[in-house]
Structures are given as structure tokens and as C-alpha cells.
């Protein structure tokens, strides 16, 4: 998880002088080209180039953020109120547009670095394994050196100040904000149980004769958390089941011979507890933030479930190089740990530092090497740490890196995880009607705060929800914003519908359901989520000046698809965009459809949007019609065509007042336009009540 949240989150220092940057490249290359160059020198040159690119990219991203902050400050100096500045920013979509640019900068930087790495590598393919082991050895040494020789770096600022200055900090300075000891202490304090469950005693030392006891102890621990309301029964059960799967995989890996036979029960017990604790803690922390879900739903329901399906498909197609139980264990370990960086103090507020959560997650995991080293070998530990760090990258290659590719693809597919949230919204037609009203209010240029409160009240009143889901729904309701309700609802665009491996290419099926289709139509989502999915793989449709429908291809069976070329023109991924399955129609659809129709009919029977817009059109477009007499005529005609069922006496008084305002500003065009806009937003009492506008 992370790409969406990485806006403005890249750190930056470095030169602003682009010419200097180009000259530096020229100089370095000239020095190297003249001499006989070894592979090591190429690698060093590539590394330098990549470092430069990182700096330039970070600098560019930071510039946008700073310029925006300066502009807001300038607005304040112009004595504009915060709400006025926010309103203008919101109307112009400044935040969203800048975010898109920053994502483009990030993607360009990432892709360029990948290109350079590829050029520098050019190793014989069979050397892949050797390289991995070499890297690990180097990594292991440098870690040792770090702990022995590097002086400890202390945080430069308070967390609040650090967030403000995040982009000016070096990676070393940033990492000083991630203290594994503090995270462990905070986690322990948060999960502190009044009644600790008593652990069942092991029969002997070995894991193999005690795996059932470990599962029982895990169950007791989870039940204790449920008992003291640290986690809901539903989510607790998911954590227990997932941990049990993990323990069973260890047994399976032992049978396969990929894990040692002499594992100790007490070591595996500790690891199992660590997983339970981290999952409960991450779930609790996730609800405190509006950043999206990093808890059970994301990690267990989403990433792990999808990753395991991908492993199955990969293994079916590659019987000669199957991923084994040890690989599955490592994938689970990565997913349990990959978002732990969000729980680090500095990431609890704001979004400046959250983009670096993956580095924190890696550091936190590596601080537990001793514990996890009792289960995994050194190379495996290194691979887990590295993949935690790169979990949100787009690079996919099922031939050479199936393991990493599965971790990344399952995390990137978060956009399509078949989320329960829309399901729950969908189960209650009243909620869908509120969402529909939010869309109507947005189109009428009105505040949606009242409707958001209505939605939250519905969620509060809804029976049969566990507390975690209720909190998640409240968060979701809160995150719906006026300019883009579809941002939050984007997840409704489609759902994952299985994978299939074709050679070295993974086919990902994304299916539209009738529910998705209805919501897409209502909110005019227009394949937004599919577009977003392509975006995370570096396909920028807006930049390419093309639409989703133009970009996708159609195969001989009429299936719409996109293939992503990863290297040497060979695609590693194919996304099939499948239409709804008519045999699997949702029974609730008819009811929701009916509710949509009722709401639309009710709105049609009361709203005066068309009349107001038509009345204003002439005054807005034709200056010569702006006379006192014409305004009176328009007012008269408008009120005459609307009967008392639509306009109350108070409404009529207000319309007259607004018309007077128009007449009074006839000599001031800007003021006149403002009054017209004001009139365009006028709501009758009935409309206000319907859209919950004060």
C-alpha cells in the first residue's frame, strides 16, 4: 500500500540548477568513456546517476509542494480567509492536479532508475542467483559495519517540525525517527492486556511436536484481545486463522525439506505472537488514520489472499520451478510487516513522511532479525527485508523474479480487492440513496457536510456491524469529499476475479458486477479505477491524451485487455476487463435500482435546477440583457412557472432578494457575475431539506 499516499511525501534536497545536472552527467561520462572501463566502474557510474536522479526527482516533487505552501501563505498575506483560499484551491483542483504531477515525477524517476539499472546490469541470466547471494553478503557486512561503526543518529527535530522539514532531511536523518524500540514499547503499551492468557506448556522442545499447542496459544491470545475489545471477533478470527495458516506452512515447509527439522517450539511461538500483535496493532492504528486501510482488511483479506491465489496459478503453469511453502511463508511475513512503518510516531500525523513508511517497515523488520532468524536463513531474511522495501513498486517479471512480482502485484491490486465497504453500503439502499444525494448536491454546487453526517448516522444506526467495520465505514464516509466522491467510491469500479498464468505472463481478471456498473453510472466513474490501475504501472492516459476505451485492446473473443510491457517488449501482465457475469447477478440490485429511481423521482419532483439555470443563462451570456427591467421580467417568469409545491413564500422572498442584488450590481460586472453564481446555487427549502443543506 502506499502509492496513493505518497503525494508530497518524497524527500528533497539538491540543486535546482538543471544545467548543472546535465553538465555533471557529461563530465562523469567523458571521464569514464576515455578510459578502459570495468563492469564495476559502470555499476558505480550507474549508481551515481541513480543517486542524482533520486535527488533531482525529490527536489522537483518538493518544489511543487513548497510553491503551493508559499502560494497559500501569499493568500494569507493578501488577507484572504483560510476558507476562501481552500475554496479556490478546491475549485481549481490544485491539490489533486499537483498530486498527479508528483506521481508522474515519482514514476518517471522510478522508471528511469530501473532503466539505468538494467543497462548497468547486463549479467548473464544464470548469474541471477549468484548476484542475489553476493548482494546479501555485501548487505550483511554493511549492516554489521553500521551497527559497529556508525554513530547513532538522533532525530534532528521534534516530530512536528520534522514533518514540516521532511524533504530537507537525508535518509539517515529520516531513519532516526524510526526507533524499533519505541515502536515495540508503544505497541506493547497499546496492546497491554489486563488478563494475560496462560500459555499451554509444550510437550518437548521441538516445533514439530508442538504445532497444535502453538495454534491453541495463538487462539487464546486472540481471544484475550477480543475479550478486552482490542479487536473485533470477526477480525480477531481472521488474524487467528491467518496465523494458524502460517504455523501450518512451517510444518509443510519442514516436510518439503525447505525448513530445518530442528526448529524450536518456543521460537515459533514467539514469531506467531509477534504476527498476532502486529496485526491487532496495525488494525487499531489504521482506524485512527484517514489514509486508507492498513489493517486486517488490507493485509489478510487483500494482499495475502490475493498473493496465495497468484502463487497457485504460478505453480500450475511452472511445475518445474514452483514456489514452495517457504516462499509462501516469506510472502506472508512480508505482508504482515510491509506497512508497519505507518505506525512510527512521525507517520501518525500529516502525510509528509508517510511515503517513507516502507523504509521504516524494513528497518523494523530487520531489527527483529534475531527472532525471525530462528525460522529463516540469512538469504531469506535479506530477501524479506528488501521486498518489504520495494513492495509498492511496479516492476514485474515472473520469469526472473516471480516472488517479488507476486508481492508487488498483490499490493498494487489493492485498488480492486473485493472490499466489504461497498458491499455494506450496497446492502442498505438508504445508504446508496445518500450517496446518490451527495452526487446531486455536488452537481448543484452545494455543501455535502449534512449528507455526510446523514451517512454517518446511518452507519451508527446500522445493526449487525462489528465495531471495526463500523469504524471503517465511518472513515469511508468522512473521506468522501465534495469535489471527488468518486475518489473514495472508486473501489466500486470492479473486483478481482481470478488469475491465470500464461507462460511468463500473469493474467489478472477484473470483473465489473452489476453493482459496480450501477454505481459507475450513477457517479459517472468512467473506468476511473481501471485508469488508476494503469497509472500505478506507469501508463498515464491523460499524458498520452487518450481515454481508457481508446487505450484498451479487444481480443478475438471480444475481451477488453491491456498488456504491460516490462522488458524487451515482453509483457509480464495482462489485465482483462471483463463485463458483468449475467449468471451471477446480485439479488440486492433490484432493490437498490428501485431506491435510485425513487430518489431520482423525488428530486425531479422538487428541484428547480433547470428553471434556475435557464433563467440565469441569458443574463450570464448576453450582456445586453442585463437591465433592471429584464431582471424583473426574468424573476416574474421564473416565479410564475414554479407553483407553490416547489416554491414556498419564503423561497419567493429569497428569490426577490437575490434579484434585487443582481439589479444593484448592474454597474459592476464582477459583482454581477458573483451574484449570478450566488443565484445559481440558490436552493428552495425543500431542496435544502432533501440535500441536508443548512
Amino acid at each position: 500500500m502506499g502509492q496513493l499516499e505518497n503525494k508530497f511525501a518524497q524527500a528533497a534536497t539538491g540543486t535546482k540548477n538543471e544545467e548543472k545536472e546535465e553538465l555533471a552527467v557529461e563530465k562523469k561520462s567523458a571521464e569514464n568513456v576515455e578510459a578502459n572501463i570495468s563492469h564495476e566502474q559502470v555499476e558505480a557510474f550507474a549508481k551515481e546517476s541513480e543517486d542524482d536522479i533520486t535527488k533531482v526527482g525529490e527536489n522537483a516533487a518538493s518544489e511543487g509542494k513548497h510553491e503551493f505552501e508559499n502560494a497559500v501563505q501569499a493568500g494569507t498575506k493578501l488577507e484572504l480567509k483560510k476558507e476562501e483560499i481552500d475554496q479556490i484551491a478546491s475549485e481549481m483542483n490544485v491539490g489533486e492536479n499537483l498530486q498527479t504531477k508528483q506521481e508522474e515525477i515519482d514514476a518517471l524517476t522510478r522508471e528511469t532508475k530501473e532503466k539505468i539499472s538494467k543497462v548497468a546490469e547486463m549479467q548473464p541470466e544464470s548469474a541471477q542467483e549468484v548476484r542475489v547471494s553476493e548482494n546479501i553478503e555485501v548487505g550483511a557486512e554493511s549492516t554489521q559495519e553500521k551497527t559497529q561503526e556508525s554513530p547513532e543518529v538522533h532525530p534532528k527535530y521534534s516530530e512536528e517540525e520534522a514533518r514540516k522539514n521532511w524533504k530537507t532531511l537525508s535518509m539517515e536523518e529520516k531513519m532516526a525517527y524510526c526507533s524499533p524500540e519505541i515502536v515495540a514499547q508503544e505497541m506493547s503499551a497499546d496492546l497491554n492486556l489486563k488478563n494475560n492468557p496462560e500459555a499451554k506448556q509444550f510437550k518437548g522442545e521441538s516445533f514439530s511436536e508442538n504445532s497444535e499447542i502453538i495454534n491453541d496459544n495463538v487462539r487464546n491470545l486472540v481471544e484475550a484481545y477480543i475479550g478486552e475489545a482490542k479487536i473485533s471477533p470477526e477480525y480477531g478470527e481472521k488474524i487467528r486463522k491467518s496465523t494458524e495458516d502460517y504455523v501450518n506452512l512451517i510444518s509443510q515447509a519442514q516436510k518439503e525439506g525447505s525448513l530445518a527439522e530442528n526448529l524450536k517450539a518456543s521460537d515459533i511461538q514467539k514469531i506467531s505472537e509477534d504476527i498476532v500483535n502486529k496485526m491487532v496493532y496495525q488494525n487499531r492504528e489504521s482506524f485512527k488514520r484517514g489514509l486508507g486501510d492498513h489493517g486486517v482488511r488490507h493485509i489478510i483479506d487483500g494482499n495475502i489472499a490475493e498473493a496465495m491465489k497468484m502463487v497457485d496459478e504460478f505453480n500450475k503453469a511452472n511445475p518445474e520451478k514452483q514456489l514452495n511453502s517457504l516462499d509462501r511463508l516469506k510472502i506472508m511475513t512480508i505482508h504482515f510487516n510491509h506497512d508497519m512503518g505507518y505506525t512510527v510516531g512521525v507517520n501518525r500525523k500529516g502525510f509528509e513522511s508517510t511515503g517513507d513508511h516502507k523504509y521504516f517497515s524494513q528497518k523494523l523488520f530487520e531489527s527483529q532479525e534475531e527472532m525471525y532468524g530462528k525460522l529463516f536463513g540469512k538469504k531469506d531474511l535479506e530477501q524479506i527485508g528488501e521486498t518489504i522495501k520495494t513492495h509498492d513498486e511496479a516492476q514485474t517479471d515472473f520469469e526472473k523474479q516471480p516472488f517479488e512480482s507476486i508481492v508487488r502485484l498483490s499490493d498494487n491490486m489493492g485498488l480492486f480487492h473485493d472490499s466489504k465497504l461497498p458491499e455494506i453500503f450496497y446492502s442498505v439502499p438508504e445508504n446508496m440513496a445518500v450517496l446518490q444525494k451527495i452526487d446531486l448536491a455536488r452537481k448543484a454546487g452545494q455543501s455535502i457536510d449534512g449528507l455526510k453526517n446523514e451517512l454517518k448516522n446511518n452507519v451508527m444506526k446500522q445493526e449487525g456491524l462489528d465495531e471495526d467495520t463500523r469504524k471503517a465505514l465511518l472513515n469511508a464516509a468522512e473521506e468522501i469529499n465534495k469535489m471527488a466522491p468518486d475518489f473514495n467510491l472508486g473501489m466500486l469500479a470492479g473486483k478481482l476475479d481470478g488469475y491465470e498464468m500464461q507462460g511468463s505472463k500473469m493474467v489478472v481478471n477484473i470483473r465489473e458486477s452489476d453493482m459496480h456498473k450501477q454505481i459507475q453510472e450513477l457517479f459517472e466513474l468512467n473506468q476511473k479505477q481501471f485508469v488508476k490501475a494503469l497509472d500505478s504501472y506507469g501508463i498515464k492516459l491523460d499524458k498520452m491524451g487518450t481515454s481508457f476505451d481508446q487505450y484498451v485492446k479487444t481480443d478475438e473473443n471480444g475481451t477488453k485487455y491491456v498488456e504491460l510491457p516490462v522488458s524487451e517488449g515482453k509483457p509480464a501482465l495482462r489485465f482483462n476487463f471483463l463485463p458483468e457475469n449475467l449468471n451471477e447477478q446480485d439479488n440486492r440490485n433490484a432493490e437498490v435500482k428501485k431506491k435510485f429511481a425513487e430518489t431520482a423521482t423525488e428530486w425531479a419532483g422538487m428541484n428547480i435546477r433547470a428553471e434556475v439555470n435557464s433563467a440565469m443563462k441569458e443574463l450570464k451570456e448576453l450582456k445586453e440583457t442585463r437591465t433592471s427591467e429584464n431582471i424583473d421580467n426574468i424573476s416574474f417568469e421564473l416565479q410564475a412557472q414554479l407553483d407553490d409545491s416547489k416554491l414556498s413564500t419564503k423561497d419567493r422572498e429569497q428569490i426577490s432578494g437575490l434579484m434585487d442584488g443582481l439589479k444593484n450590481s448592474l454597474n459592476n460586472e464582477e459583482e454581477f457575475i458573483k451574484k449570478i453564481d450566488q443565484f445559481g446555487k440558490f436552493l428552495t427549502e425543500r431542496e435544502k431539506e432533501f440535500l441536508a443543506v443548512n
Partner: protein
Amino acid sequence: MIFMTKNNNQKIAEIKAIHNEYVKEINKLREEQNKIVAEFIKKLEEKKMDKIRSLIKGI
């Protein structure tokens, strides 16, 4: 060995080209970013002018 050296020289040249292309593209994105902010500032200034005009009218 001679072949390897030549190959490595080519790699350096290729990396250089990729790097320069990157600088070019990133500058375009910088400009686009600056444009977004510049338009935002312009709107803020317009809003301020509106307020001043309203005040003058009030007097």
C-alpha cells in the same frame, strides 16, 4: 576483453542518454507544476481584488 570495454563504454553512453532524457522530462513536469501554482496564485489575487472592489463599493 576489448569487446567488454567497448560494451561498457556503450553502457556509459546509454546511461548518460537516459539521464539527460530524464532531466529534460522532469523539467517539463516542473514547468507544469509551476503553472498549476501560478494559476492558483492568479485566482487568489483576483479574489483579493474582488474583495477590495466590494469594500470600495460599500464606502
